[in-house]
């Protein structure tokens, strides 16, 4: 049985790191290394990683800039830093840095103990906080928790909150939950009074499974907001929604070049004689370069 002292391996690995050379390659034939798929102390096994101490994590939460805290919590994915939990719970609502709120939720949701307290706090906050910004952040956190038990609170916020910011965050969070039970809420949000909420709802369609309410998407092709029309046209094409050719063809006359371009691309995806005819007509009338590019390529797409 050929075995090698792990201390020798350690020295060689250190030389590798320090010198940049690869001594193990030279000696590979003479030694064996244990297969390592788990290391309790290090956590991650790749070079340049390693679990931080709880103390470092606490210090980072208290004083590190967003990027540093982000990295610290990633490397500390499995460090059971219980003192970190209440500090990060506070970050969910108090931090002005989106990256900090996101990574705080990411780390908290991986905790078997204490996560429940944070989850309940956010479910309460999204409904009961006075400040719309804090309700919005609570919605973001519930989405980032990816816990379907946040569905009811998020649905209520998406449908009933007086603030468009909160409704938009709640709809986005429902997309993050990615549960079929949230899909009707997302579809309903496509009819919201506020264009930013409608846009947020459309933007979830590609993130969620089993969304089949194509009528809701096609209905937004006539929206009065340019971005909403653009996104609706793209989704119609992406999902190859049959029967939407006439509505898309109308958008080839839209005031917005981005809308015309997206409608052209969608018609190319859907294909068929009606789509081709509409694209050809538009090709003759169009003057905007990037829309002409879309029409040319859409005609080729439709021909395949």
């Amino acid at each position, binding site marked *: 049985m050929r075995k090698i002292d792990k201390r020798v391996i350690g020295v060689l690995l250190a030389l590798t790191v320090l010198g940049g050379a690869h001594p193990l390659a030279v000696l590979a034939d003479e030694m064996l290394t244990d*297969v390592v798929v788990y290391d*309790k102390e290090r956590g991650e096994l*790749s*070079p340049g990683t390693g679990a931080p101490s709880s103390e470092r994590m606490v210090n980072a939460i208290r004083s590190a800039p967003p990027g540093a805290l982000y990295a610290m919590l990633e490397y500390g994915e499995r460090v059971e830093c219980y003192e970190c939990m209440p500090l990060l719970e506070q970050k969910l609502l108090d931090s002005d840095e989106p990256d900090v709120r996101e990574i705080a939720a990411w780390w908290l949701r991986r905790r*078997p103990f204490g996560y429940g307290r944070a989850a309940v706090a956010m479910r309460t906050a999204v409904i009961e906080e006075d400040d719309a910004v804090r309700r919005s952040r609570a919605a973001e956190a519930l989405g980032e928790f990816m816990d379907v038990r946040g569905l009811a609170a998020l649905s209520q916020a998406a449908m009933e909150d007086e603030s468009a910011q909160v409704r938009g965050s709640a709809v986005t969070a429902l997309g993050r939950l990615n549960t079929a*039970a949230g899909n009707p809420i997302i579809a309903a949000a496509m009819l919201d009074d506020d264009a930013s909420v409608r846009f947020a709802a459309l933007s979830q369609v590609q993130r969620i499974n089993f969304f089949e309410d194509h009528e809701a998407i096609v209905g937004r092709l006539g929206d009065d907001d340019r971005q909403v029309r653009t996104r609706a046209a793209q989704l119609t094409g992406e999902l190859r929604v049959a029967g939407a050719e006439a509505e898309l063809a109308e958008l080839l006359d839209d005031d917005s070049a981005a809308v015309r371009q997206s409608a052209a691309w969608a018609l190319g995806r859907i294909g068929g004689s009606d789509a081709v005819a509409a694209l050809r007509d538009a090709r003759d009338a169009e003057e905007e370069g*990037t829309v002409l590019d879309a029409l040319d390529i859409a005609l080729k797409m439709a021909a395949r």
Partner: protein
Amino acid sequence: MRTTRWMGLWLLPALGLIGACSSQGDNDEVLPGVDAMVFAKRAFLQDNGDHNVAGGANRVVDYLRYTPGGGLFVLSPPTPDGDLQELTADFDEVDVSGLDLSFDATEVVFSMRHAGDDGHYHIYKANVDGSGRVKQLTFGPHDDVRPIFLPGERVGFVTNQAYTQMGRRADEYNHGRQVTQLATISIEDGDASRHVCSQNLSHSADPFLMSDGSIGFSRWEHLGPVNDVKLFRMNPDCTDMLAVAGQHGKGFNSIVQVREVEAGRYVGIATSREGTIQAGAVMDIDVRVDGSSSRFDEQQAEFTSLTPDVPTDREAQVPTGVGRYRSPLVLEDNLLLVSWANGDVSERNELAGEAPKFGIFLYDTETEDRVRVYDDPDTWDLYAMPVRPREEPPERNSRLDVEPDPSVAQFGAKAAVLGSIDVRQTSLSESVSGAQFDGTPLSEALVDTEKVRIIEGFSSEVGGVREFGLTMHEGAAILGEAEVQPDGSWEAHVVPYLPYHLQPIDRFGLAIRNQMLWIQAMPGENRTCGGCHESRAETALATQGATLAQQLPLERKNFSTLAIKDRIELPWYGSVSGGDVQELFDNKCVSCHDGGANDPFAGRSYTVTIPPEEDGGMELVYEVPYLLLTNTSLETYYEDDVVSYPASYVTLLYPSAMMGDSEVAGDVPDPPWVIPGSARESRLISKVNATPDDERAGTEWAWDTPAHPEDVGVELTPAERLILIRMADLGGQYYSRRNVEDAAMWLGDATSTPVGTGDINGTDYQAGN
């Protein structure tokens, strides 16, 4: 540092052939023999005057970072006071994410997002001399970035387009961001010729062209505790995705922004996975065997820093004058065209609220001197390339131009094929321990291989799971276990596009090795290799005709038609369909391991204490049993309805999940009951022991110790033991797709394709199409 002399792609053409731009050779010449340079300015100044220091850029992959105010420029001559021509002047609020020059240096492809578009990055092309108008090549609700020209009038790039049966891959370890993969289009037909490559569980990024016509790229690799960025290559038809360097002997975490110097030699940026704003040391990577121009071995890759003063981690302070580098390109002997910023280029920039200032420099690797070529202090100046022709590599024949096999009726009638000629062949100097092995060389242990387990990976795109459990491993399903034949060969027809990793397993079902790298294959692709990581430096194994596995009838090796519902998944508890691991405990274990009078571990526990969230708040205290196999939820309720895990999962997996220093107090199982990714080393598995699930059952055992629970009068069938073994070998996941509330929509209907359908690429790939 060794002296290098490069004969790279950029030296091959005669210098100064192109006359697109004017004067050279005067006293101000910075880039010898180069008339003009194309590059991008990327903004960091925001409307309110603040700096966008690392937004979108604090991970190592150059992905999405829209800060308007940049553009695509040609500088001629390439000197600080040269004439600057903006090729994107017709667009407002521009950001450019990558560019490349055509082989004749007359066109540039680039990725751009601008104010009037649809909110996504798309691929465009422009004439280098500014004539004509900019043409857009790609469209749609996804981002296409980092384009490169390919032989045969094609363009390769990175996209986050969704297309698999489960929609858009979400990289759980990049916080659910949409995973990027590679794709190609033709320069003429754009999206009408779009061809999308197989997916990985994390991002593919930074494509570059190799001299043999293949595409090199960086790939973020997450598989359990593996989390780094390696160097890969593939054919332009997306076949033959192979590791080039970084799997072995890499002393830093990530290698990105790579370019080929010559066949088998590369230069790229070596750095931390995050926190360095995608900048780092310039690293020479040599995978040639004994300097050969035709024999490469990723296992023997050598890494030599060309900027030895620059640290490759994120925490070391970087002195003034040292700085960090981005987007290196070999110009000629010892001369690199680079982007460079002074000082730390790290999170300390965040503390100061000031973005690093990347300018374009000529770097001499021998003298370590830098000469400024261009530096706009208000932008990041990146992706610089000399405007001069270069040799067009040969167009590689597609490996997918084969007749479809109608008997494998899925994915355009083309399955993918994985296999080995002889699984016992390996170049890995590893040892295996546990059960019948004790420090046994892998080459010897592999002789015991009876099957190869094919494991599909997935991530949080499945929806409705907070994580996959108390483990670093992602979602996993066993697509199948292919039989190894007497000649050591095996073959499996599998669902294309998906990421897999493999485990050679012995007669007990125990993995002998756990491949910690994802592999994938395109429809119709055959990825039969020599062995279990056979030597890349040796001549490939020769066979006399077909292997025994290749001669097997299709029905014995076809896993390509398996719907999601038919793949083996191991949910721990709460499955909405099929059984789960807890059922086994309920039926066979909890009669003793229930914390009661008959429980040998009753009364042993450790304590978890979580401080209150505010002064005067409630401290949370949890008592975790040493071993308790019931489905009782531990005291993890908060108020009335938030539940974490059943006792069995917490007691078996929590001890192995606690990395680094631990704040728990009391009697923690040591060693842990389950080692995620290794049943062979798991205390639980050795305790229950393992026996083959065939006619050898009960006559052969993996460990010499008595089988449990047979020693106390309870019988565990071989199949039940296999549930536990697979659970540990796969990584100890709690969730599977069967836990997802809506899973029935996948599980009950294999044809359900919510986003994207079947084969995104249609039927056949054709180069130049």
